[in-house]
């Protein structure tokens, strides 16, 4: 089996073990950062290999597909692995400034790394049941991270997060079990043929809906998102940043994978539902955000509305739309994580995340203000930032299909996003601090300043680069979308040419 595929999953878990053993000393923090650097290198090697060779697959333990567990990397998977590694490293560095010795002693870094390992595993697996296992790995790690601060509100948020997510995983398990019973296979490439050949298409659609609900709950789409705004503003900022960037996107990724590879037999039913779900997700998310007055709560609701755009790309199911979904997914992870990290710095400087209790950041911390503008405007879709291209492609794809309503909603939600971002800007940055406080980056200890600002600057630079030179990234997303819509290469890589 191929090490290129296995290393991105193995490195985080080895790092987790190291970080756990060293959790009482400062070495644990450094192990986490070092492991993240190694993960990044492994992810770069993987994506280079995929760009070079196309879809690559490896069979664990040498058991041939469809009997063994397969690891597969196509353009989408490899890009998601790379972006997970980037976010992992950024947040690992940022954590150094926020996570104190108490949380570290409870195993923060170990949980953080096993979360990254679970996310990476979910992106690379080619087996539906294995995907379930990775979901559980990242879920149990996220449970631990959520409660590790031990604050009252975190326990409250965790109750809702844990219970609703457990229902989703049980549904996923039920769907996978029934699918196995009906087709006799769990290998995703093999399932494509098996589902299409099944005599009972009604049953297949039923199972598709079970998986749609399960993944939809993970991705926080309407009407299944209620756990997200209940919990994402409660843990450490580093935790909510990595959750905001990666966790819901695993759900979106699973939807993208399963509803382009396996369940394509009844597009008029499944994707029509996805279309309405995506529109309602965009609207409820952005309207929910408009009603909030807490920095992180606003950002949490915006995760939901942005998820809508990605699901919309999948629902339209044209090459351009799916390309838009892939591009949106990649750009959004960077932007959203960065916004949560900036919210963390703002809380540290001003003493609160309640927008009415803070202010004055523009005057005394202009660097932070400038860095907020980049991801905030990118989220709203201002040219020439990355979000503009993402929204442009999705809206263009819906106009190509003559879906005026869809395009209208997408543009309206973009406009309302600007409203929320302006609210944050006016309250946290523009107006003076109500207590006359003068929040400045110089208030932070020297080491914390570096640890917090370097990841934020790096992510902002990536947003600007994607926006300024979109053609390479759009081309990559186009290739990814082609592989999703015509999975012949994927199936051939997993099952071998003969079964094609």
């Amino acid at each position: 089996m191929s090490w290129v595929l296995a290393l991105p999953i193995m490195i985080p878990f080895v790092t987790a073990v190291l970080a756990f053993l060293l959790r009482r000393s400062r070495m644990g923090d450094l192990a986490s950062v070092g492991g993240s650097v190694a993960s990044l290198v492994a992810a770069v090697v993987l994506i280079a290999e995929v760009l070079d060779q196309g879809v690559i697959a490896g069979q664990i333990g040498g058991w041939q597909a469809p009997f063994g567990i397969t690891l597969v990397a196509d353009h989408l998977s490899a890009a998601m692995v790379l972006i997970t590694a980037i976010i992992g490293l950024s947040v690992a560095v940022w954590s150094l400034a926020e996570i104190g010795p108490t949380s570290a002693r409870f195993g923060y870094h170990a949980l953080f790394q096993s979360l990254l390992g679970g996310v990476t595993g979910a992106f690379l697996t080619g087996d539906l049941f294995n995907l379930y296992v990775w979901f559980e790995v990242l879920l149990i790690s996220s449970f631990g991270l959520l409660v590790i601060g031990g604050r009252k509100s975190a326990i409250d948020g965790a109750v809702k997060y844990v219970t609703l997510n457990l229902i989703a995983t049980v549904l996923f398990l039920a769907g996978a079990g029934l699918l196995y019973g009906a087709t006799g296979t769990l290998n995703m490439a093999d399932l494509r043929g098996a589902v299409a050949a099944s005599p009972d298409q009604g049953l297949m659609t039923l199972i598709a809906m079970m998986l749609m609900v399960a993944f939809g709950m993970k991705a926080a789409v309407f009407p299944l998102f209620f756990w997200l705004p209940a919990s994402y503003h409660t843990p450490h900022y580093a935790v909510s940043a990595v959750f905001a960037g990666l966790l819901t996107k695993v759900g979106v990724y699973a939807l993208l994978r399963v509803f382009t590879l396996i369940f394509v037999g009844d597009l008029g039913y499944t994707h029509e539902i996805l279309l309405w779900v995506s529109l309602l997700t965009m609207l409820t998310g952005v309207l929910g955000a408009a009603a909030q007055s807490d920095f992180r709560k606003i950002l949490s609701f915006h995760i939901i509305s942005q998820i809508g755009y990605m699901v919309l790309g999948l629902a339209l199911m044209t090459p351009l739309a799916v390309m838009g979904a892939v591009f949106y997914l990649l750009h959004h992870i960077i932007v959203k994580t960065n916004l949560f990290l900036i919210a963390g710095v703002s809380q540290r400087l001003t003493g609160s995340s309640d927008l009415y209790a803070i202010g004055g950041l523009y005057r005394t911390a202009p660097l932070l203000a400038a860095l907020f503008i980049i991801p905030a405007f990118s989220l709203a879709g201002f040219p020439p930032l990355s979000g503009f291209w993402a929204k442009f492609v999705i809206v263009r794809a819906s106009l190509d299909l003559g879906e005026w309503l869809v395009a209208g909603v997408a543009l309206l939600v973009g406009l309302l996003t600007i409203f929320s971002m302006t609210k944050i800007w006016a309250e946290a940055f523009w107006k003076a601090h109500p207590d006359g406080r003068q929040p400045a980056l110089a208030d932070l200890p020297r080491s914390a300043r570096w640890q917090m600002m370097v990841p934020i600057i790096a992510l902002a630079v990536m947003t600007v680069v994607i926006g300024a030179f979109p053609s390479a990234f759009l081309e990559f997303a186009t290739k990814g979308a082609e592989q999703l819509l015509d999975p012949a290469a994927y199936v051939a890589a997993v099952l071998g040419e003969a079964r094609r």
Partner: protein
Amino acid sequence: METLVACLSGFLVATSIWLMLSGNLMRFLFGLLLLSNGVNLAILAAGRLTPGAPPLLGAKGALPPDTMANALPQALLLTAIVIGFGLFAFALALTIRAYRTFGHLEVDRMRIAEPAEERE
């Protein structure tokens, strides 16, 4: 036999939904436990029940004469049971912590993270 297991699974799931609709966190958890067991049974039934044909090779690797049970659903089940056990243990620990923190387990009254709108 499969019909019987399927009915039992359905009964467990129905009971679990009734329990999960309760506003009490403890009842919800019991519902969740029943739900995961109901689903486990469904997986077992979906893999077809073949009583009396254990998936074991004979001496010197000889294949058993008759049909052999499919071992994969059982492997999936074992994995699911172990994972479910771990998650349930965490959920129980969280419930205890929630009880100590709030002094009750009524989910509707847990509004610290999302305080109700103040009426003015």
